[in-house]
């Protein structure tokens, strides 16, 4: 299939973006107020923290810095203002430096240096100046520039039957054209891990992947907790799913049949093209935020029962195969594959042929969204954001 061209923005560091967002990034919850106020007065996108740069040790400190620097240097971001309080472990100036090291422009303000009112005033001035410098959408690129994040949430039987395998068809074509996709949700690959491991580029990649999944299983089991009710969730069970294996075997279909190129830590950007696994959680907000930090231009989000979640800078395309969800949650769903569900019921067409139609519908939507069409979550300004941290908060 022929895929259309994309018009967007070529960044100073060579990246290609499909949005041109100005972001006000709070670096710690203590600075959220200032970031929200600057955003409110200017129309910039606020990214606020649940926890943020304070009281983190070791791995979490590294992870936070990586995620925030990747947000500030995200290809869909034109310019970033980092706002911090001043006494936190990783200050806003340091974060802005990290963004600059990635070849992108950022400025920073500390509330303890200026006071709240002046921070907001100065922030508004800086954002307005950045807005004046924005350029129109004009550079042309192909789909090989795109990094597509993959996520499923509120899954039911239609996820593994229709929407996930349709995404898999789209991902296969995208990767054949040189594009990149990232699957995540470590616990939702439990029971399906061999399918991806068999497709790993090398023995090392397979081992790295299996080690990460094994650790995820051990982390659950050493707490002596029950999988049922959490993985799968009660909603999943009501929707016809029974075990984590069944859920995972449906979820892994999002990754199509491509070779697994490598594993990424949470929020880490892929080093090459093709299919990657990001070691992240299943919880929607933290999974989508991690995929955004990893540089996803667009996130494909399949859903059975439906959700409205968005992301500050990566457009989220909602896909469902469930006719009831497509009807009830019309204001959430971008690609309605429930027509395919009706096809399966009414005809004896082969499932594979039907899923190819689904893949094509998704690819066409990717190209439209990459060219500026707003997703439902963008239209309703959904900007949920939360980073997965692992350890001690002081």
């Amino acid at each position: 299939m022929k895929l259309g061209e994309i018009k967007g923005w070529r960044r100073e560091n060579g990246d290609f973006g499909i949005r041109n967002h100005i972001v006000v990034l709070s670096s710690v919850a203590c600075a959220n107020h200032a970031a929200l106020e600057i955003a409110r007065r200017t129309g910039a996108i606020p990214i606020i923290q649940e926890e943020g740069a304070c009281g983190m040790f070791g791995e979490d400190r590294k992870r936070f810095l990586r995620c925030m620097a990747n947000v500030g240097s995200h290809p869909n971001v034109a310019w970033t203002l980092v706002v911090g309080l001043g006494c936190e472990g990783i200050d806003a100036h340091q974060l802005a430096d990290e963004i600059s090291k990635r070849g992108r422009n950022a400025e920073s303000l500390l509330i303890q240096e200026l006071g709240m009112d002046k921070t907001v005033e100065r922030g508004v001035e800086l954002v307005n100046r950045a807005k004046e410098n924005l350029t129109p959408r004009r550079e042309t690129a192909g789909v090989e520039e795109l990094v597509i994040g993959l996520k499923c949430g509120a899954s039911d039987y239609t996820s593994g039957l229709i929407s996930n395998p349709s995404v898999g068809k789209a991902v296969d074509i995208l990767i054949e054209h040189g594009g990149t996709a990232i699957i995540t949700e470590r616990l939702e690959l439990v029971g399906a891990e061999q399918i991806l491991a068999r497709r790993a580029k090398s023995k090392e990649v397979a081992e790295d992947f299996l080690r990460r999944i094994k650790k995820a299983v051990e982390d659950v089991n050493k707490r002596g907790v029950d999988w049922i009710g959490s993985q799968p969730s009660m909603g999943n069970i009501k929707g016809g799913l029974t075990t984590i294996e069944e859920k995972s075997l449906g979820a892994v279909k999002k990754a199509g049949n491509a070779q697994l190129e490598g594993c990424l830590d949470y929020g880490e950007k892929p080093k090459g093209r093709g299919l990657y696994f990001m070691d992240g959680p299943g919880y929607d907000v933290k999974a989508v935020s991690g995929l955004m930090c990893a540089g996803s231009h667009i996130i494909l989000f399949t859903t059975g029962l439906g959700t409205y979640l968005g992301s500050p800078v990566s457009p989220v395309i909602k896909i469902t195969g469930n006719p009831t969800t497509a009807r009830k949650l019309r204001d959430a769903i971008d690609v309605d594959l429930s027509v395919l569900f009706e096809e399966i019921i009414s005809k004896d067409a082969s499932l594979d042929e039907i899923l190819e139609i689904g893949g094509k519908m998704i690819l066409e939507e990717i190209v439209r969204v990459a060219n500026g069409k707003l997703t439902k979550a963008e239209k309703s300004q959904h900007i949920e954001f939360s980073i997965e941290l692992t350890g001690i908060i002081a």
Partner: protein
Amino acid sequence: MKFVIMNRKDNVATAIVPLKKGEKVVVGGREIILLEDIPQGHKFAIRDINAGDFIIKYGEIIGIATRNIKAGEYVHIHNLRSRYQGAMK
């Protein structure tokens, strides 16, 4: 189609419309009578499965039968458990 079998190795099928107890379905030329109502999106056995056998969907193991299951019986969390659930105990 009223139900789908994802892979020819599977021993369960997924109802894509609600199916009624007593309804007849044909699987691989063989007639199966449904022994229970099957909610939309849920599964039924397409052959007899013994307690301890693997339940197969997508051609892969989705869990272990916790009791004998007859062809046409509803397969859900009451007679199927995850292999990981077992590993925990």
